[in-house]
């Protein structure tokens, strides 16, 4: 299960294809994250939690 920022989507898709995983599903969050503080990170995580669980095929 991979999570990256939206600025790396193109690269992530290319890497997946290079390894034979065309259409590999991963989650993106808005860039940047390196300069965020904890409450902002927690907010981002909450926003994408549903997508993460869906890819993992886990029910909330």
């Amino acid at each position: 299960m991979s999570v990256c920022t939206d600025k790396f989507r193109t690269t992530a898709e290319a890497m997946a294809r290079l390894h034979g995983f065309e259409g590999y599903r991963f989650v993106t969050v808005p860039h940047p994250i390196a300069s965020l503080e904890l409450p902002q990170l927690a907010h981002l995580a909450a926003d994408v939690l549903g997508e993460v669980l869906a890819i993992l095929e886990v029910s909330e």
Partner: protein
Amino acid sequence: MTADAVDDAGDDAADAADAAGDAGEAAPGGMLIDHRQVHGAIEHYYERGWTDGLPVVPPTESYLAEFLAQVDRSPDEVVAAMPHLNRECTLRLAAINSIMAGCLPEYFPVVLAMLDALRADTGARGATRFSSGLWQSTTGTVPITVVNGPVRLRLGFNCKGNIFGPGFRPNATIGRALRLIAMNVLGLKPHVLDQSTHANPAKYTCCIAENEEESPWEPMSVEAGYGPEASTVAFMMMRSCMHIEARSAIRPEHVLSDVANTVARTGVLYSEKSACLLVVSPEHAQLLASHGWDKKDVREFVAANAVCTREALERAGKTGISRDMHWLVPSEHPDAMQGEEPTFERRDGQDVHFVLGSPDDVVVVVAGAANAGVSTVIELMGATTAPSGRGGGRLPAMSEIVMSSRSATTSPRPL
């Protein structure tokens, strides 16, 4: 460039040889070729995305044969590989891209030695750094190669002025060949697999040669244990390039304090330690040598004086250490480890952090014109690597340049 193009990168490079046929062989007997054919061939390479933005030389099969004849190695030999990208470069593809870069056939053994050195470049864990993500980093690291030995004079390498600038075919085209191999064969295209935020201008090409004739010290290749008759290529990964203006320096400490101050800038520190290639001008080298300083003295002085104060790191938000990557972050950063900070020592009443791990993290070569007290600090990505130098120090990865025995009385013949 789209992501789709990445998948085609390896195939594209192989197709380049076929395209060579389309470009047409040189007409026998000196017949003129229509300029539209020449321009059409050049534009074809642009359309296929096989350039670095500058025009390339269209290869032909006969010219490729001249390149392959320069070495006693199989065209099918894999000379570079990036397993994490499922990409390999054969010797033949390296030759094609060397032609496209503008190399002459006799340059090709240098290109191959450069690739050999690149494969020998290992990180702290002993794995080749070529197979890491280093070449795709947002930092925008750039290969820099240093040529030593008689090949410099035989092929006309510039080592005596404007060494990082234009005007000299071996320097310009051999460095460019590596970039074209990276882009066309290994698929490291900007905006896709090459994620550099800025990179730097040296990414087009960066191949310098040591000015052995005006150096008071032994060449780096001899330092590494090669004989003076050997020609070598050393490989490093550059981050940034900065000039040292110490034109009126009288003592070694004047020059090297400027160097140490430059090496210790906080902006270079994403992790605790840095490394550098110090390109000493002949004027500075002569000043240092006239006071009895050798390369070892230079390394030791720079390592001992390249320090950041705690206050400087605090101002830059770099007194914390992140959990997994161990990057320097603000101490209040969410990823900072509690109670962890860079190593400080007490010196002259203040806490200082040593930016270099040891004198081995300073590589010293002499190059440039003997016309001013100007030297250059090249910040390197990661510490220097094997092999060890004769003096017990560590040096960059290095490889000997060897050409085909078919044009020599002994086999193989060093250039």
